[in-house]
């Protein structure tokens, strides 16, 4: 790997200063994604700002009746936190569907949102990839794209965002709190990650000098009717081909509110509020779920190896909504 300098930040302001001081600097939290990428020269920071000692490692109640997840709380501590398990089981399940116990012990909530795509070509510096090297081309569009996106793609990049946690956070309409040189701001989850467009090298709307300090969960947790369905090529330790975070607020059999977010299909967790609204006031039936599923894949486009994801996504949405309704045993 390229040589780098290293500092440990002692507070948020210091972290922001440090990361702004040098152009090619990066925060390091659990290191489970960044270090791997540094070893293979995909990430080549010249300066690392270690943020693991910042006091952002607690989960607290918010004034709005929700929970605030500090950016440095580990994925494991989040998933097994009593209040998260009780009020936001969808989030617990999504986190536990990802990676492995060892990785979740290291991985932080902030780092999870910032993890980079798993596109094969992004990982291999001897191949063209617009995300890694803007302007070099996209090897995946006409190459091997089985794992890649079917929604929101561009001619420059068809990568997916690999996080499971983020899919649940999208469904829950979380907010991301960030601090930069210009102070603090809150980014609604749906605006946090970007579509590739013609700037696929920029994954999120976080500015280079900004640090994630927390993720705020709104009061509503859909704890009675939810599911996280993850479909993948082996039973564990694999990224999603398609995943669905589904949540229902039911009045008897009638849907008051529905949330559906997809993972593994786009450059960001995919939500279509208009499609969710199709269920509003309607009975929670397979037929109605089917309509939502159809609406979600409207305009989806396969690139050959990943064509199957369109059909798989539809079936997964229906299954996930049925599971959320029945709260029966999971797959």
């Amino acid at each position: 790997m390229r040589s780098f300098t290293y500092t440990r930040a002692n507070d948020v302001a210091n972290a922001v200063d440090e990361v702004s001081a040098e152009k090619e600097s990066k925060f390091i939290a659990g290191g489970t994604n960044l270090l791997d990428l540094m070893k293979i020269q995909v990430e080549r920071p010249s300066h690392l700002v270690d943020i693991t000692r910042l006091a952002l490692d607690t989960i607290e109640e918010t004034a709005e009746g929700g929970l605030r997840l500090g950016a440095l709380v580990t994925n494991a501590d989040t998933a097994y936190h009593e209040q998260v398990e009780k009020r936001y089981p969808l989030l617990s399940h999504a986190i536990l569907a990802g990676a492995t116990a060892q990785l979740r012990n290291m991985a932080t909530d902030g780092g999870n949102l910032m993890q980079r795509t798993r596109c094969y070509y992004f990982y291999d510096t001897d191949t063209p990839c617009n995300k890694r090297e803007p302007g070099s081309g996209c090897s995946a569009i006409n190459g091997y794209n089985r794992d890649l996106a079917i929604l929101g793609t561009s001619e420059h990049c068809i990568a997916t965002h690999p996080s499971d946690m983020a899919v649940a956070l999208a469904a829950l309409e979380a907010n991301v709190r960030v601090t930069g040189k210009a102070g603090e701001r809150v980014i609604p989850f749906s605006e946090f990650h970007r579509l590739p467009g013609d700037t696929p090298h920029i994954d999120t709307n976080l500015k280079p000098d900004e640090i994630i300090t927390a993720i705020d969960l709104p009061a509503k947790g859909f704890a009675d009717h939810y599911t996280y369905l993850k479909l993948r090529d082996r039973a564990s330790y694999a990224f999603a081909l398609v995943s669905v975070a589904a949540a229902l607020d039911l009045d008897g059999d009638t849907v008051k509110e529905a949330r559906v977010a997809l993972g593994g299909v786009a450059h960001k967790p995919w939500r279509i509020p208009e499609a969710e609204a199709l269920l509003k006031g309607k009975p929670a039936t397979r037929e109605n779920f089917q309509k939502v599923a159809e609406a979600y894949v409207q305009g989806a486009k396969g690139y050959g190896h990943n064509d199957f994801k369109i059909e798989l996504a539809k079936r997964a949405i229906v299954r996930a909504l049925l599971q959320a309704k029945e709260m029966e045993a999971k797959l």
Partner: protein
Amino acid sequence: MKTNEIGKPTNRVDGRHKVTGEAKYAGEFNVPNLAYGFAVNSAIAKGKIKKIDTSKALQVEGVLEVFTHENRPGYVWFDKNYKDMDAPPGSPFRPLYDNEVKFSMQPIALAVAETFELARYAASLVEVEYETSPHDTDFEANIERAYVPEEYNSGEPPKPWGQPDEALANAPVQIEEEYTHSSQHHNPMEMHASTVVYEADGKLTVYDKIQGVMNTHQYITHAFGMQPEEVQVISPFVGGAFGSGLRPQYQLFLAVLAARELKRSVRVTLTRQQMFSFGHRPKTMQRFALGASKEGKLEALQQDVFAETSRFEDYSEDVVIWAGVLYKCENVKLSHKLVDLDVYTPLDMRAPGGTTGTFALECSMDELAHKLGMDPIEFRLKNYSEKDQNEDKPFSSKELRECYRQGAEKFGWKKRNPAPRSMREGHNLIGWGMAHGAWEANQAQASAKAVLTSDGKLTVSSATADIGTGTYTVMTQIAAETLGLQLDDVTFKLGDSSLPDAPLEGGSKTVSTVGTAVKSACDKVRERLFELAQQVEGSPLAEASLEDVVFEGGQISLRKEPSKGVSITAAMSHNQGKAIEEEVSSKPADGQSDYARYAHSATFVEVKVDEDLGTIRVTRVVSAIAGGRIINPKTAKSQILGGVVWGIGVAMEEDTVMDNNLGRFMNHDLDKYHIPVNADVHEVEVIFVEEKDEIVNPLGAKGLGEIGIVSVAPAIANAVFHATGKRVRELPITLDKLL
């Protein structure tokens, strides 16, 4: 025969070393002043290196040298000097030989530095300009070009017998199908590494990851023009290899080159990504045409194999021999052709040819049985082969029927509803499938030395390997059994080129080959001991012959009057304080080759397939094995379990993805190249059926390293068909293929 050690589920004698980290692997032998090399791999699949600029790398402090084809030392001239013991016909690849690039990820330079990370960084600074030529890595597109190689490194496909074309045309029930699997990479846990210690006198001590130190030894002495006594190769532990360590890999060549040039000790370790830059199981397509009578008698069988190889070596494996071993059929035609592509040469991978051939054979037979409306076991029993038709030889033993019987009973096969899609549980379709298989039970030539010292301690040695299979343990058991010693009194040494010669550990023949040599050496010691025991004053054995005594518990005693005997130490006291030393070379017995020698398996599998989502779980596996005498049921079971788990991977996960635009394998790490994880493995039961075999070798034991894998993938594929009614003929069976 009464036994004390053979047949016991003994723990691994090296287990403690392994779990405490005391066991050292090739990349862990540290010496003072060690330098580290990191290979640069080519970005293109074919062409020439126009320019290679190492200046930036050399400027980094701590970088010692960057070797390329431009500054490498002179090489010995002849191609044959680069042939290792496992080289297929052709011209072996020589690292840094010239500016030609023959495959993607070809090593084209070695950066050497004071630390591994510096070397890796320096490697990334090497700038290469290529003149690319069009490459071709597209297997399917080139099948038409397939050719018959001049020489098969496996064996020639057996000649046709009977009237295969006529019989097929006349058969009332026929099937004709194509079966494919893609390239697969071995991926042992331990990455390939070589630590080359440069001794004061220029001699080399080489710690190498290899499945037989003699191969490394030969390769270095030939390729570098060194004398045998100038090189010692040591490899006490191998962290898995599965065939990837049969041939010395390029890290060895580069480490030796650098050490000799720099006159300094050098280590080169490959990264996981680089583990995808050499041999692999070749992508293979097979056409099967089968014909049967209405009653289910197999009338005709034709198998045509098309397999990938490189442009410089013709690699082949035994894909077509399995039908002739497993099924009785009077009209058979077999062919095996190669498709040369711009890739590195394929390499034996656990049950090479067997895994591939059995998959297609057993799926096609399942298809035929289904078409005939027959139960798969009934169909197999009807066409059971009592002799090996490839060579027209009787079997030394074949308890396959017993595998069916015990396996089916344990599995509950009787309750199977034969109709596809007939068994379900909620969203899940349940499928039960079976397949059977065989694997060679060969014996080769090997030497071993046994040394018994006056304190009654025995050391046995042979230059074999333990690639995780349990060689240390099993050889210790065999030696202890032969001389009636406790396991603790026996030490077995391996993995050192200064020890008596042994072949590569591959082809499941180590127990048979080295075990026999160990037994013979110990038998010789036994004879000498007996003579000494007779000389002990008042020896109760004075009048006895060797057949009249037993060696047990450190005593040599009369078989008929066990209380009368002489202790081994007492006998040794008559040897003037000297040790008994015996070295033997053992060969297969005369007449052995008149018989076909195989281990057999029958595998039963239950799968649950989600009807809507296509996800598959292998919920139950029963593997029944006929493997001769089981020396150690515990290590034996581990081998079969490992084979079953790998079979799950072959069936559902393993797939090295070739990007034909780039001519490059793309999923080159363990996040993207999938092998089974614990969550993929549910109930697995192993049965060893009793099998007596006095021909296969004096121990009566057959190797078990590979038989466990061969029939797993087809059993899973057959179970998936039974569950879903859908036949997937292209491995791996992933969920998209079932939507």
